[in-house]
């Protein structure tokens, strides 16, 4: 049983107060929590359910539908590489291999230190400048194996 985390509760209370308790505000609240904590935990579901009067099952149904809401802690930096056609043709495979080799994980996995997670995304509107990826909400385009390694190094430096 997870303990009630005071920080989490206070954060959700503030977020619900900001948007309101109406059902249409569920997604903004989920997004706030996701952004702040990196994911929406079971404890967060309970608090949101209590404050917005929506069943946990309903909230889970919504959260699991949207790929930008994480239900588990995947890592500090979630790297989403575009796998759609224009990025694929522009050399997505090389970027994919470089990322897997550098981080020592496959797509769908997270690094042991909890720093990075590798995922795919479907098109982010950078089709004339592929290959493209998102790191959390930051966009990177026209990637090469060299430039993607620079990006990784930069995030590693940030953490230290």
């Amino acid at each position, binding site marked *: 049983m997870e303990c009630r985390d005071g920080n989490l509760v206070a954060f959700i209370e503030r977020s619900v107060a900001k948007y309101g308790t109406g059902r249409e505000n569920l*997604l903004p609240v989920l997004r706030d929590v996701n952004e702040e904590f990196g994911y929406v935990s079971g404890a967060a579901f309970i608090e949101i359910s209590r404050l917005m009067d929506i069943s946990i099952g309903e909230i889970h149904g919504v959260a699991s*539908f949207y790929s930008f809401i994480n239900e588990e802690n995947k890592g500090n930096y979630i790297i989403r590489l575009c796998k*759609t056609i224009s990025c694929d043709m522009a050399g997505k495979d090389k970027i994919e291999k470089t990322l897997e080799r550098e981080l020592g994980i496959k797509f769908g996995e997270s690094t042991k230190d909890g720093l990075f997670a590798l995922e795919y995304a479907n098109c982010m509107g950078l*089709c*004339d400048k592929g290959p493209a990826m998102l790191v959390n909400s930051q966009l990177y385009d026209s990637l090469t194996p060299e430039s993607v390694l620079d990006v990784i190094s930069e995030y590693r430096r940030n953490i230290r």
Partner: protein
Amino acid sequence: MKYNAKILSTDNVLLKNIGNIDPLKIEEYVTSGGYEALKKTVSMDRKEVIDVVSDSGLRGRGGANFPTGRKWLFTYNAQADQKYIICNADEGEPGTVKDRILMEGDPHQLIEGITIAAYAIGATKGFIYIRGEYRDSINTVNAAIKQAEEKGMLGKNILGSGFDFELSVAMGGGAYICGEETALIDSMEGKRGEPRLKPPYPPVEGLFGKPTIVNNVETLSNVPHIIVKGSEWYRNIGASCSPGTKLFMLCGDVNEPGILETPIDLSFAEIIKKYGKGTSGGEVKFAQIGGSSGNIFTPEMLEKVWTYERCCEFNVSYGTGSIFVCNDRRSVVDHLLTVAEFFEHESCGKCTPCREGTHRIKEIVEEFAFGEGTVSDLELLKELCLVMKRSPICGLGQACVNPVLDAIEYFKGEILAN
């Protein structure tokens, strides 16, 4: 990083300001002639505004080509205490970047268009539903809304006319299906973004059960120009059955990828040659027009001018206007597999034909990708696609089979030989 697509055309209407004004300075938009249309609109009768848009022949630019004026008229005629307008900026169609460019490069053009539409249909609340991936668009549009409010172009008593209109941004959560208008509405109501059974259609019963217009960014960005210059001016651009300019995105195997604006009086081959500086890495083998669910065009088809009439005649669509060029070294099976994987992931799962069908399509295409496909597999694939064209409840399931059916028709030999 600020995203700037290369603008390939020079004689532009919608793209005219982009790169030439600071999108975050409303004064620069006003100096370029901005908000003149709104001033004109608020002195007009509401029905008159709709008539001008109907007369212009403007059609929805999100891919469905529905006459905009007619859509507005449904909501105008609907009796309700509250009406809404939603700008669909959930641009997720692979190959499509136009809405991003319009929002980040000239947000006030869009805001003005939305406000005019709201006035015409009698909506007092509006939303721009922007996909979550577009952080820069969200920030730019939010800043522009604030400026417009300060200048009295939004909010209470707009330009002293007594018309109130409140506009805000809603943010998507990374789901392609939310570009479907009823899925978008469900998403805005805090639900899973799954398409609704129609009818009722949104113009009569949409957001929170109220009459709601959902229009694409490009559609609404056309509106201020039509109001200022008149419907006749608009009708005289391009072919008579496809008035106005259209934004096209060139990507894939072209020498110069980017975005361009042109009347529909050029063939796709001419567009590729004139604006994209030709095909790269070989001769053109085919182009997929209008995103992942778009039709596949052979080189012969690319030579034609695809007006709205011709599209109807041959039952094809240029959708959102992305032109995805593949050279003769590309494998059509690899192309189909990427597309099939995309739809397998993006099918929302609400209705069976699409949920199961997209999965089966991927499996069969995989057989061919592994070199194990047979003639009977191909027949099964075709049958499945024909069933899916008719049975799913929304456009995703119905349209995602287009490239597969086209590929079977034009490249049967290559698929079987793979």
